[in-house]
């Protein structure tokens, strides 16, 4: 169990460092083209670690810069959904009654939409752009988190220390965010880690379909997408971005699940 967590965290850190220090790690300018026949679609070599694409760009450099895009979309989108989900879930669970009913019905409506299609519709209106992608993924993926936080609040609000805080005249917002929320964070951490992986996957899917990050800015999804036309004779164009997405999502899931096992004693002994 510990090894899974360690493995996941190590890979996430390596990818994050790659993204942060991209200019120092990348061997070439990720957007520099070289259309001469001898530098297009070259297989991996010492000069181009992961080969070159159909426009003679260095795939390794594009992957390194793509990590920036993919990871920041993952984190920022989840940050947005965390903010919305936690706030609405907390308010809903704490106040209950009519407030709860209204928020929960709204969540159910959101649940009914197939997320990817909803995102595609919004992108179709707003235009594909990295900021739009982050925001849209964020505002369509908070529902699960909202329900989770609400469920935690429903049990926590009846606890004595909450009554004790209210007896002292602490205001509702302080009771919610300073007294109850810290006690509800365990499952939230798990859910957030898993959502980052999911958000990276959604971003890749969108970029693959041409609705996400736009060329020439590299992202793992659009490198993969550009490479699919050459899959017969340039395998490196699809294999490496595909692997990168796989490993990124896998390590976030590994971390998320080992966190879940650690924070939930009822599951211990199973993993």
């Amino acid at each position, binding site marked *: 169990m510990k090894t899974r967590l360690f493995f996941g965290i190590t890979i996430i850190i390596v990818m994050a460092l790659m993204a942060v220090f991209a200019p120092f790690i990348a061997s070439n300018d990720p957007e520099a083209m070289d259309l001469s026949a001898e530098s297009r679609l070259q297989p991996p070599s010492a000069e181009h670690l992961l080969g070159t694409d159909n426009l003679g760009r260095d795939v390794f450099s594009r992957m390194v810069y793509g990590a920036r895009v993919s990871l920041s979309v993952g984190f920022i989108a989840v940050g947005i959904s965390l903010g919305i989900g936690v706030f609405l879930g907390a308010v809903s669970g704490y106040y209950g009654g009519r407030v709860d009913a209204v928020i929960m019905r709204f969540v159910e409506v959101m649940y009914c939409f197939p997320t990817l299609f909803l995102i595609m519709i919004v992108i179709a209106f707003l235009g594909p752009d990295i900021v739009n992608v982050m925001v849209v993924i964020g505002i369509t993926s908070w529902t699960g988190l909202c329900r989770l936080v609400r469920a935690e609040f429903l049990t926590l609000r009846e606890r004595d220390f909450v009554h*004790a805080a209210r007896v002292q005249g602490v205001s509702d917002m302080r009771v919610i965010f300073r007294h109850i929320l810290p006690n509800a964070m365990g499952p939230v951490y798990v859910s957030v880690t898993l959502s980052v992986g999911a958000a990276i996957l959604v971003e890749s899917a969108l970029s693959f379909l041409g609705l996400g990050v736009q060329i020439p800015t590299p992202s793992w999804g659009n490198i993969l997408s550009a490479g699919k036309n050459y899959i017969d004779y340039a395998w490196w164009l699809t294999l490496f971005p595909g692997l990168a997405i796989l490993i990124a999502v896998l390590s976030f899931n590994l971390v998320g699940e080992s966190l879940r096992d650690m924070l939930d004693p009822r599951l211990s002994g199973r993993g």
Partner: protein
Amino acid sequence: MDEKILEIKDLTVSFGENRVIEDVSFSIKRGEVTALVGESGSGKTMTALSILDLLPDTACRRKGEILFDGKNIFDLGPEELRDMRGNAIAMVFQEPFTALNPVIRIGRQIAEAVSAHGICPRSEVRERIKESLSTVRLPEETVYQYPHELSGGMRQRVMLSMALSCDPAILILDEPTTALDVSIQKHILDLIRHIQKDRQLTVLFITHDFSVVRTIADKVCVMRRGRVVEQGAKEDVLGEPACEYTRQLIACIPVLGDKRERLPVVDG
């Protein structure tokens, strides 16, 4: 000193068809310790929660009035109520193990109460916390500890210091010693009595234990099935109980050297 600080008039609380408190009336005078006695389910805690207007909102209907300093608290708005809680009327719960937030350090928890009412400037909050810890005879370092690091008695002292930190006009103690073992109970009771004398505090002491009543109360109010069955000065109620139920409760106090096989049973 004969002034009534809190007066409860014909208080009735019901959950649906179920009346948990019926026509309860009593008053508390400034500087006096009033004991509210009764079995489990007799409505003691519900009465206390009504005073703070913190009754659970599940199908709860109430009638009557509770006058604090001449004002009916059922007429107060949410902000006025919030300001009254902790500041004017403070309360200590029965269970010291669950009444403290497990993830917040003791100092911060006491600070919550103090800063919620803006009683003193921020720079003095720290001083005030230390002071309130020392009144309950806890070391200063307790500020940096988490609730799980403290024993039951210490936690109850923390609760008490939180309640006292705002200098409330009335302190409600809901079975403050019930969850503690006997020797700690005595320490806490001595401490409460000491602080009460020292500050001339007005206390509403909720308990089911007449031996505790004997040591601490000035006035006694006996409740049964949501009604007040007897009330009066401690000497009168304990000396010559007018009500059969009170007599039965008093008979339940075990006495050292008692040869009885079984304690008498109260028909609740």
